[in-house]
């Protein structure tokens, strides 16, 4: 099997040579014409005739594009139902525009895709070679690939044998959407509303913040200097007489006990245990160990003293003066009473 290529300056000469080859009995399938412009089709018998279906594919994908466009427009509007300007959620007159553009875009891309597919259908995906060429300088060439190439070469002027190639199509641009997660976080918004952006006076420690304070989570002290805090954390419990005499302002009731139980569940249970026995999950870390609330020693204390102990925290117990309102602390007192009452 030999391959030869002959070049001609003018299309007329090439067509004449082509006719001469056919007259000499070389089948038309073996001759390929390479020209720099389309030659009249009736002058050349088909080299290899493959049906051209580009048009039908474009019609098909045009319709697909229209459907896709509608799905995109209507689907996205139904996905996140956002109303604008008094229009219905899916308004056909408006979506028609998107449908139209999508259909056209698909049609255009399909045309190019099938142009490539159809011109390249019978070639391997291999590197382009020197031989995969039309002929230089606008010449017209006849490429003959046949058993009788030698004889054809005799008829034409002899040239070297050549072959074909193509390239892979790079569709990498789809990957070019950079991570959109991060962009939202670093969006330029003034940081003044940020918690950490609010400057803290020197030598102070943070106290419950604005929101907590607003919702009466504790005494409003603002920023506290550590020494003051430490003074409040006195370990010698000297209960003021006023407090000792104080009567429980929250009457003992099921509701009060319930509220106390809630607070107990959040803050106290980890030391004092579910039953108040002083056997919570972290109880063994504290020295002295947490008090058994059901113990008569505790229960005999008056309401005021219990309240005060919760407030300032005796020995190893933390103070809750800023964590609980006075009312909540009395709820707790009621809850402690309920431990033995039932």
């Amino acid at each position: 099997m030999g391959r030869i290529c002959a070049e001609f300056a003018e299309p007329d000469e090439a067509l004449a040579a082509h006719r001469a080859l056919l007259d000499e009995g070389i089948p038309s399938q073996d001759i390929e014409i390479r020209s720099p412009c389309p030659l009249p089709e009736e002058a050349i018998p088909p080299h290899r005739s493959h049906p051209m279906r580009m048009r039908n594919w474009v019609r098909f994908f045009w319709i697909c594009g229209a459907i896709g466009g509608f799905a995109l427009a209507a689907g996205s509007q139904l996905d996140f139902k956002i109303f604008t300007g008094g229009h219905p959620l899916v308004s056909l007159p408006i979506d028609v525009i998107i449908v139209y553009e999508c259909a056209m875009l698909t049609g255009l891309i399909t045309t190019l895709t099938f142009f490539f597919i159809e011109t390249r259908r019978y070639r391997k995906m291999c590197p382009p070679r020197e031989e995969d060429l039309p002929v230089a300088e606008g010449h017209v060439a006849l490429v003959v690939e046949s058993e009788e190439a030698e004889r054809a070469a005799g008829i034409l002027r002899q040239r070297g044998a050549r072959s074909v190639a193509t390239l892979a199509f790079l569709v990498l641009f789809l990957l070019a959407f950079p991570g959109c997660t991060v962009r939202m976080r670093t969006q330029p918004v003034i940081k003044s509303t940020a918690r950490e952006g609010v400057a803290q006076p020197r030598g102070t420690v943070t106290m419950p913040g604005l929101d907590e304070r607003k919702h009466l989570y504790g005494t409003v002290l603002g920023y506290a200097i550590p020494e003051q805090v430490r003074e409040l954390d006195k370990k010698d419990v000297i209960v003021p007489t006023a407090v000792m005499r104080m009567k429980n302002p929250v009457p003992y009731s099921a509701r009060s006990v319930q509220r106390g139980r809630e607070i107990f569940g959040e803050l106290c249970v980890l030391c004092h245990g579910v039953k108040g026995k002083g056997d919570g999950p972290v109880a063994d870390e504290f020295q002295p160990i947490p008090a058994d609330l059901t113990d008569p020693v505790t229960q005999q204390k008056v309401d005021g003293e219990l309240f005060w102990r919760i407030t300032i925290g005796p020995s190893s117990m933390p103070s809750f003066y800023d964590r609980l309102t006075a009312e909540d602390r009395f709820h707790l007192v009621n809850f402690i009473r309920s431990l033995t009452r039932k």
Partner: protein
Amino acid sequence: MSFKAPDLSIKQIYDEVMTTVLGPRPKMATLLLMIILAAIVLHGVFQFFRQSFVGLGVTGLTMPVYWGIYIATFVFWIGVAHAGALISAILRITGAEWKSSITRIAEVITLFTLPAAASFPFIHMGRPGLFYYLIPYPNNRLIWPNFKSPLMWDFFAISTYFIGSVLFLYVTLIPDLGTARPNMKGWRKTLYTILSFGWRGTAEEWKRVKEAAALFSVLILPVVISVHTIVSWDFAMQLVPGWHSEVFGPYFFVGALYSGVAAVFTVMTLLKWRCGFKDLITPIHYDMLGRVFLALGLAWAYLFFNDFLPGYYSNEPDKMAYFRYLAFSHPYSVLFWLMFLTNFVLPIACLSFKGFRMSTVPMFLLSIGVNVGMYIERVLIVFCGTQVYNPLARNVTVYVPSFTEISIVAATFAGVTLGYMLFIRAFPILPIWELAETKIRQTVREIAGKKVYYFKSGE
């Protein structure tokens, strides 16, 4: 005078077209011009970044005028970009044989002006870094863009048109790249090898490339109409008296074709002078395209009149205020009447003479005049629509573009010119295969002692 293909062999056509690519190194003056253009572009880019970091306050935009020269230039560039579609699609569909010298010139105008146009919405945005919010893709925010917004239609229309016209240009460029590839050296060889996609020029491939070109022509023509209609809808959909007009769609479209053809004339003439396509771009081309030019000019004038008449006739106060502002208020009346002169009076008066149409220099000047006029028209529409007095708006100042805006606009002009200059150096600017095909299909017959040229139908 009927059209006659240039009297050249295929080889000669090839040589003449490829002079721009394979010819001698550009002269110092050309290089200097390129450097200056590149400097203007870089300055524009710098100004854009400055604007996006500092804020849009660096522009001259003030309260009632939220859309300024950026949008005006955007509309202008979109209009010029219509040249490609008009010449390649309409003329291809109608089988006008004289198109072959002009098609690619026009398509390349689209190739560069459309990105220039598409960049303006981003430049105009307050937060250009977030442009991806406009792209409809499944995202982790679970929210989509609003398809009810004319800007989304713009996004779809412009991207469709851009993709379509680039593919169109590329498909018709493939055969020429393939033809020229064996003669190339260096980086051009690499480029041509990759882009020509293994083109060989067999009869099969020719059949397909012609089919693809026909399909592209049919598909891109309606897209082109939709593009400028949608751009006009950006204005027409709004409750601004000067903009809320039903005739804006066709008015903008015809205006776009008008400025597009004017741009083709400008580029064509420059190519003829600088690159020496003396045999390929002839006065006949000027005459033929000049007729199209004239028709478009008249159509534009008709639609301009149509926009104005109903408001005037019915004494609609808002519209009348707008037109009075346009035609008689101080900063804009000069521009308005200049536009009237260069867009309507001069072209209609001159183009109806064949002698004028066939002469290069006057046509060149006229085409520049029309483009200036069309630019002014866009500027007037965009500026005056919101600037016109409205008791609810708090008008304080008249909008004047700032230095930043002007330098960014200038950068796109420089960028388009630079891009075109580089394209000419890199690729054949005239379609070799179409010229050769015209030549082959041409038949001569003598009737009554006169040579008559006619063409066998392509398909």
